[in-house]
């Protein structure tokens, strides 16, 4: 129809779509799914860090990690707000998360097993997230685009901080600490590459999302960009990644890399990852166990309102 044509013309002209503008139902649904997944990921992503925030080794590192966790809660909040501008309901979307109908980034289903994981999560996981998200600052939906600008800024900070944790351990640490860093990279490398999603060939929704400028690059393009920018940093650390096929390809101007174990990715996605069950259980307990608190807050606000009206 003419509305659809006008919509696509705006998109093509890089004019942002705003909440009150007409939009195709599928655009709305795709965005709700994408933004809510992103919001869920921020919240679930606090849990692997929560495992170490009580054991951070110095006051400085404790402050950094706490600030990062706080930022993630904040990102969750903006993103749920952006999502709500599309007419979705935060509680309903969270309920989908808890019942397994909504996804979140698979990486958070891996356990954090040593302190270097707090560095590697910042460097690799936030690093991969940023590569995914930088183009989303220019995504076609206005509120999402603006949320992304703020999120990216803070995540770049987290990424540098994470890298600095690792660099410090490699430069000033003892052998046990250096082993921790390499161990963390070994465990988190492949899951980080999986964060960009399946290869373009196996990513059926990508074409439409690209046309709508919800996505701006394919999964494989972003994955390559991440690898290309990360390997030089890895070399400065003096570490390796667990991929014997990784090497610079002069001709392509990119790093070649080995085959990703997509079986593992799909297993984790299906709920069979190492920590899926604990993550969802923790979140469900938080929200269900906190129902009485939220009810009290509402009851109290109502009382105050009635008193003010009387």
């Amino acid at each position, binding site marked *: 129809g003419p509305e659809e044509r006008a919509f696509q013309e705006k998109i093509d002209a890089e004019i942002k779509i705003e909440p009150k503008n007409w939009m195709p139902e599928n655009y709305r649904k795709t965005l709700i799914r994408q933004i809510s997944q992103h919001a869920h990921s921020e*919240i*679930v992503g*606090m*849990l692997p*860090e*929560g495992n170490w*925030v*009580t*054991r*951070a*080794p*110095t*006051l400085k*590192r*404790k*402050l950094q990690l*706490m*600030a990062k*966790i*706080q930022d993630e*809660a*904040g990102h*969750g*909040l903006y993103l*749920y707000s952006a999502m709500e501008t599309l007419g979705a309901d935060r509680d309903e979307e969270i309920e989908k998360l808890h019942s397994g109908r909504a996804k979140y980034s698979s990486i958070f289903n891996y356990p954090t097993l040593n*302190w270097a994981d707090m560095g590697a999560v910042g460097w690799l996981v936030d690093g991969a997230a940023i590569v995914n998200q930088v183009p989303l600052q220019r995504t076609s939906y206005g509120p999402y685009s603006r949320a992304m600008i703020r999120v990216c800024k803070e995540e770049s900070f987290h990424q540098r901080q994470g890298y600095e*944790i690792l660099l*410090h*351990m490699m430069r*000033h*640490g*003892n052998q*046990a*600490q250096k082993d921790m860093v390499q161990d963390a990279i070994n465990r988190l490398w492949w899951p980080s590459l999986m964060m960009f999603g399946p290869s373009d060939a196996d990513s059926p929704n990508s074409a439409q999302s690209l046309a709508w400028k919800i996505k701006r690059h394919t999964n494989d393009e972003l994955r390559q960009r991440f690898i290309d920018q990360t390997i030089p940093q890895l070399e400065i650390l003096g570490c390796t990644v667990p991929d014997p096929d990784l090497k610079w390809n002069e001709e392509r101007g990119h790093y070649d890399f080995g085959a990703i174990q997509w079986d593992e990715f799909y297993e984790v996605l299906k709920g069979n990852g190492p920590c899926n069950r604990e993550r969802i259980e*923790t*979140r469900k*307990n*938080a*929200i269900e*166990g*906190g*129902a*009485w*608190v*939220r*009810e*009290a*807050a509402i*009851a*109290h*606000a109502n*009382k105050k309102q009635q008193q003010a009206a009387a």
Partner: protein
Amino acid sequence: MTNYDELTEFLLRLGDSALIQAQRLCEWTGRAPALEEEMGMMNVGLDLVGQARNWYEYAAERINDGTDADALAFRRDERAFRNLLLVEQPNGDFAVTMAKQFFYDAWQFHLLTLLKQASDERIAAIATKSLKEVTYHLRRSTQWVERLGDGTQESHERMEKAVDTVWRFTYELMEEGDTERALSASGILPSLATLPELWRSTVKHTLSNATLTLPEPASSFYLNARAGVHSEHLGTLLAEMQFLQRAYPDASW
């Protein structure tokens, strides 16, 4: 153990209390009843770790034997910790957490207000900076105590029970210790003699707004944070918090 002077003991009381309260807040990560409270608790916790660091740095300078803020936080054993008994108590439900937070915030608020006038400039400066943060903390925890106390029937009962659960540890907030009296007498600190009354008045006001019963003042009973005689909860908290510094004593992080 190094023999700390009175001012050092006082600084550790402030630093340890802030750190342990923050550590309990960290335990809530990903478990709060709402996203806004994840942010709120982490925000308060961040302020408190920052305050702890300021107090510890000053204490370390005074001790002057090569120790530093991290060593004070992560290398002292239970019997050397000087934190209020209140803050080491387990989190319990959100009502217990808020009762602890509110009683602690009210104490910090009035104490820091008095300490702003300290003749020791370092203390006055840290107090002034911290008080800005604590003013917000107290507003937040006051609101929650009121919301939960005067919310639903369930929240009211939980909040009453929470106050009852931690109340007996509040005698420390009502007690001017010999250390404080000596520091005031020597002119380093202003008099803190009014602190118990100020604290009780704030608590009375808020509990009343929250439709909660104000208990009789708690009385002192054996446990004594000033002498490092803690409840059994502190030991396991420290085992977790200090793990890396203990397991890798020569490491730089």
